[in-house]
Each structure stands twice: as structure tokens, then as C-alpha cells.
């Protein structure tokens, strides 16, 4: 009787420790997709405005801006904060578009298995020879936030893609 009780307790503890924490996030991430559209302002001048992509007209060839905002809702600092974002299907990453304050930005060309800087990434061309990867080859983007994110503090990272 005693032995069975112990076993159950151990299993329960292990589950609690390894299960990922969804929903009860300490660092909350929000992603937003926008497009730039030319509008005429009150003065009758043309200006570019960002519109949420879900509410805009989207056509092949359009440039979409993704912004990922994060906030540390906890009472202690979050360290080693890393954000990853797969380049969505039907989209091509636009060279030099990834940005993020205090972030080291890397890219993946192998579905997120490994990451490197643009200068290091290589892919095979049609003849099977290695060539330097272009933005259109990238599958994932990774931002390593180099400073701890203090309680209550926020940050944003982003990138742009072209819809195929």
C-alpha cells in the first residue's frame, strides 16, 4: 500500500516539471500581421498607413509586416529569452527585413533544426552545388534577446515577407 502511494507521487511530480506551460505564460507573445496601404489623409495628402492584414485586401506579391510583441508579466526577470517564427507558407522572407532591439538575429534554412547568420547559411542549387542562401530560402527566424527582460518590460521584433 505504501509503495503504490510513492510511485504515484513520483509520476505526478515528473509530469508537473516537464509539461510546457501554455496559457499561464509569464512572457506573453503577441503576433500581428500588417500591410502598408496608401491612404489620403485629412489634408488631402497621400500617406502610407499600416492596416491589419486580416482586414486588408491581400494579393500575390504583397509585402506583409509581422510584428511580435512580448511582455514579461512575472515578478522576476526572464532570462535567455529567444523568439522563433517560422516563415509562413506561401511567403518569402525579404532580405534585411528582420529587426529587434538588443536581439541577435539568426535564420534557418532547414526547418528550424539549425540557425546561422546570412553569411553562413548555404543551400543546394539545382545542380546540387552549395550556394549562399537568400532570404527566399529562409524557413525560420530567431531572435536571441541579449539582455534579461525585466518584470513588466516589453519588446518587439519583426520581419517582412512577400506573398508568393
Amino acid at each position: 500500500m505504501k509503495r503504490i502511494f510513492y510511485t504515484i507521487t513520483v509520476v505526478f511530480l515528473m509530469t508537473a516539471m516537464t509539461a510546457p506551460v501554455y496559457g499561464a505564460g509569464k512572457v506573453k507573445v503577441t503576433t500581428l500581421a500588417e500591410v502598408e496601404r496608401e491612404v489620403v489623409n485629412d489634408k488631402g495628402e497621400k500617406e502610407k498607413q499600416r492596416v491589419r492584414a486580416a482586414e486588408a485586401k491581400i494579393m500575390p506579391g504583397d509585402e506583409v509586416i509581422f510584428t511580435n510583441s512580448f511582455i514579461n508579466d512575472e515578478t522576476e526577470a526572464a532570462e535567455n529569452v529567444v523568439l522563433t517564427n517560422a516563415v509562413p507558407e506561401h511567403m518569402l522572407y525579404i532580405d534585411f527585413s528582420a529587426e529587434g532591439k538588443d536581439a541577435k538575429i539568426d535564420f534557418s534554412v532547414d526547418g528550424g533544426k539549425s540557425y546561422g547568420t546570412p553569411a553562413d547559411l548555404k543551400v543546394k542549387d539545382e545542380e546540387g552545388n552549395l550556394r549562399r542562401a537568400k532570404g527566399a530560402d529562409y524557413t525560420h527566424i530567431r531572435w536571441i534577446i541579449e539582455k534579461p527582460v525585466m518584470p513588466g518590460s516589453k519588446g518587439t521584433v519583426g520581419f517582412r515577407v512577400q506573398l508568393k
Partner: protein
Amino acid sequence: MKAKVSLLALLCLLAFSSEAMALGTIAGTSISNMATATYTLGAGTLTQDSNIEVLTVDELIDMTVTWQDASGVGVRPGDVDSVLTFSLSNTGNGSEKFNLSANSTLGTGDFDPTLTGIFFDTNSNGIYDSGTDNPYIAGTNDPVLSADASVILFLVNSIPSGLTDGDLGNSEISISSATGSGAAGDAFAGLGDSGTNAIIGSSGGALSLTGAYIVSSIALDLVKSYLVSDQFGGSQPVSGATISYIITATVTGVGTATDLVITDPIPSDTTYKDGTLKLDAAVLSKAADGDAGDVGITTAGAVTVTLGNVAAGSAAQTITFDVTIN
């Protein structure tokens, strides 16, 4: 100097990344994005997914029309079933229905042809076949093209009599998207595929293109036939069998056809049989030399025979050559 070089490299990369897409993402496609954060808090490593942001691709309405003949189609006064060939391509990203119309009373040339109608290439042979190819009837068989699909359209006219050599006659085909047309960027809410918005592309959703006939009382008739003989004494087109092609060229009408050159491609999966190219009784070597023909030199992968200046009414000339099925 160094800065200049890197700026140039940057511009090259930007130009590359914004190049036009041959076929855009299909209208109605939903695209989702999610970011993930991992971080350490005290001793534990945690993972947190973002919301999922979804956008839907709208329908771009766009098309191209090209006149396949590219230059005036030679006709004779009184001809019937004279054909101008056009190709319509749906360069949008959704399935689209197109309305067609034709106008042969443009009054822009030396004469107006008499419109017979627009016809489809019903038997898909690239040539108008009267009685076989179906006429276009507005509202009944408007062509519906999926994204990137094309259709051949024949604009058929008859040619009035009493015209002289060199007279030009024009005929116009007009094509518009059944969803709508307008300025580039105009939108039709909810009228695209899968209930998306339909957005007019650079074609404006409507295009007209004129093709021309040129009266030329000289005409070249080419008739091509073939015979198959297999190595077993039969006529099965099996590997190793020989196909003998016979092309007969006849110039009719009045005048002289100048610099006449006949080119005929060697069919794929066949090999030209040495020493078989003949113009009437004369054997022509395959090299580009003093004789009238060659194989694969003047035109890659084709037989080329130069007939030169041929007077109308002169005897038909016959080109023959054999190929072996690989």
C-alpha cells in the same frame, strides 16, 4: 568605394526578392503565423506560443491576350473562314469566367472583314477546323479559366471581294472578366473565389486586341503526310520503325513567293535517318553546304529546305525525309 559596392549588392538582393511571381498564391488561401518564446525563469525553462494571426489571400483579376499570328494573315479576296488566332491567359490567382466579343467594323484599315464569330479550339490542335471547333455564344459557353490557364480563341472572318494586293483589314477581340473591370486596385467585395474580395489587376479586367489580314493574291499551301513502316514488314509505330514524311509545297495565286524556306522539326524521340532528305528527286546532304537543305544546322532539331523564289502556278515541290523511332 567599399560602401558603393555593398550598396550595389544590397540593391541587387532587393531587386531579386521582389521579382514577379509566375503563379501567385491561390485566392482564398488562409495563411497563419505564430511566434514562440522560450526563456528561463529562475531554474525552469519555459515555452510560450503567441496568438495565431490569420490572413486570407484575395482574388486578383488579371489576364493577358496575345495575337498569335504576330503579323498580317495573308488572305485572298473572297476567302471564307480566314482565321486570326489569339491566346487568352488568366494571370490572376483564382478561377475566372471571361466574356468575349468581336468587332470587325472598325473602319481602320483598307477594308472591313465580315465577322463570322469567335471559335474555340475544340479539338485542341491549334488550327481552326470549320464545323468541328465550337462557336463562342455569349452567356452560354463563356470560358472559365483556372489560375495560370490559357485558351486559344479563333477570330474568324470572311474577306470581301474586289480588293487589291497589300490591302489591310482589321478585326478586334475584346475580353472582360465576368466579375468586373475597372482601374487597377478597384475591388469587388466578396465576389472573389471562396468569398474573398476580387481586386482588379493591371489589365483593368478588360482588354481588346486587334489582329490584321493582308490581302495577298499569292499563297503557299503546305500539305504534310507520313507513312510508318516497321522492321517487321508492317506499319506499327514501334521502336525502330521508320516514319517517312512527305511535305508538298504549292504556290497559288498571282506573282512570286520570294525567299521561301520550309522548316519542319524532327519529332521528339525520333532520329533523322542519314541520306533520306530529298527535294523532289534530288538528295540533300544534312550539312549546310551548296545544296538547298540541311538537318539541324540552320534550325536546331529541324529540317530546313530553301526553295527560294517560287512563281505562283509552278509545279508543286515535294520534300521527303525519314526518321527512326527511338
